[in-house]
């Protein structure tokens, strides 16, 4: 006998209902950075735009940062943890391989929702947002919490002149739910595994244990810069096209905060109008991978540079290499 399987159906549209972030307490300025590497404040600022970065302080971890951001996001969305249908956490710096950070956070938030971690590095928040949007519209979920959190200070070789000054810690969280109007445009995403070595972990954990060495994140800055200024600029244009949004209709541009010079190159390529507010939170936060896009969004909204209801272009890109972007309505 052949049965008929019911299909799920969900909301017509999804939107971000809130955004929040957690900023680690320890400020590491370029003067302190230059006690670890042979560099200068001028060189770091000129090459990256970073004046200072945040590292976790006493008692702060990916878990505490993620929870802080998550609780604020739930409160701002006006829902409780028990109303969540799913939690998606993007991180490359939760050093406990199993179980997932998401499941642990769900429990702390009084939720028994579906919970899982994803590994999409600096594109992680945009990957999570795309999944959340699909879950809400498919009916698999009503409210989804998307978190990007990193503690890259524990994963960075402080004496590596190529990466030490770049990476930082932080967390951002968004609640995605049903909406009367569409608030999250089609995702444009992909990967290029041929460039897996452009950003990677220096040693597998098992080899690191055998060798008694600590693994770090390694980056071929030249390869990443080339990919980001060329291919990713083009991908950002495709994100606008997919959403049917003209550059003139855009209010805010929030690229992953990898490097101000990459942002500059994207702006030249995209030819965005002058009125578009551009996120440059890398100046005070550094590059905190999956946390950078939501932290920048929350920061722009908090400062009044961006307003709720405005249209923003998001694009994340990083280790994989992977990328994802979408046009969203700011919560």
């Amino acid at each position, binding site marked *: 006998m052949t049965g008929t399987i019911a299909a799920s159906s969900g909301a017509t549209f999804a939107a971000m209902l809130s955004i929040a972030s957690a900023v680690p307490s320890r400020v590491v300025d370029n003067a302190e950075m230059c006690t670890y590497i042979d560099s200068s404040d001028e060189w770091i600022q*000129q*090459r990256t735009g970073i004046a200072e970065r945040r590292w976790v302080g006493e008692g702060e971890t990916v878990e505490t940062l993620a929870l802080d951001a998550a609780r604020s996001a739930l409160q701002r969305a006006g829902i409780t943890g028990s109303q969540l249908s799913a939690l998606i956490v993007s991180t490359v710096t939760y050093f406990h391989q199993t179980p997932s950070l998401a499941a642990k956070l769900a429990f702390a938030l009084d939720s028994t929702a579906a919970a899982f971690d994803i590994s999409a590095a600096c594109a992680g928040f945009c990957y999570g947002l795309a999944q959340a949007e699909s879950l809400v519209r498919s009916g698999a979920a009503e409210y989804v919490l998307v978190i990007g959190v990193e503690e890259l200070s524990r994963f960075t070789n402080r004496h590596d002149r190529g990466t030490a000054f770049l990476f930082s810690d932080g967390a951002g969280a968004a609640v995605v739910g049903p909406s009367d109007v569409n608030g999250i445009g089609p995702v444009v995403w992909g990967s290029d595994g041929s460039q897996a070595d452009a950003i990677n972990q220096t040693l597998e954990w098992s080899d690191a244990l055998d060798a008694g060495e600590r693994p770090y994140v390694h980056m071929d800055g*030249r*390869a990443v*810069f*080339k990919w980001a*200024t*060329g291919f990713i600029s083009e991908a950002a244009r495709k994100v606008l096209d997919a959403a049917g949004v003209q550059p003139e209709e855009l209010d805010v541009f929030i690229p992953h905060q990898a*490097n101000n*010079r990459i942002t500059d*190159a994207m702006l*030249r390529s995209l030819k965005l109008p002058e009125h578009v507010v551009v996120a440059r939170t890398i100046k005070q936060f550094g590059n905190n991978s999956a946390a950078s896009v939501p932290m920048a969004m929350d920061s722009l909204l908090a400062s009044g540079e961006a307003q709720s209801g405005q249209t923003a272009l998001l694009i994340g890109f990083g280790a994989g290499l992977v990328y994802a972007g979408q046009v969203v309505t700011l919560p």
Partner: protein
Amino acid sequence: MATTEEIRAQLAELVNDVAGVPVEDVQLDKSFVDDLDVDSLAMVEIIVGCEEKFGVTIPDEDSKNLKTVGDAVAYVEAHS
């Protein structure tokens, strides 16, 4: 087929756009790094810009040899 001067002029616009160097300074005998003060990140962007503008592919091992404006123009002439 574009002339050497046409390629130089287009390259000068690109270098101006990326690194703010006056177009008239971008002459064949000039070194990107030593004369035009183009840093390594800007150089990567100029290479990407050349690939788009002139429809050439410039692998890393070749791009590292493009020291002067003349080197870049000659590369484009040979490969486009």
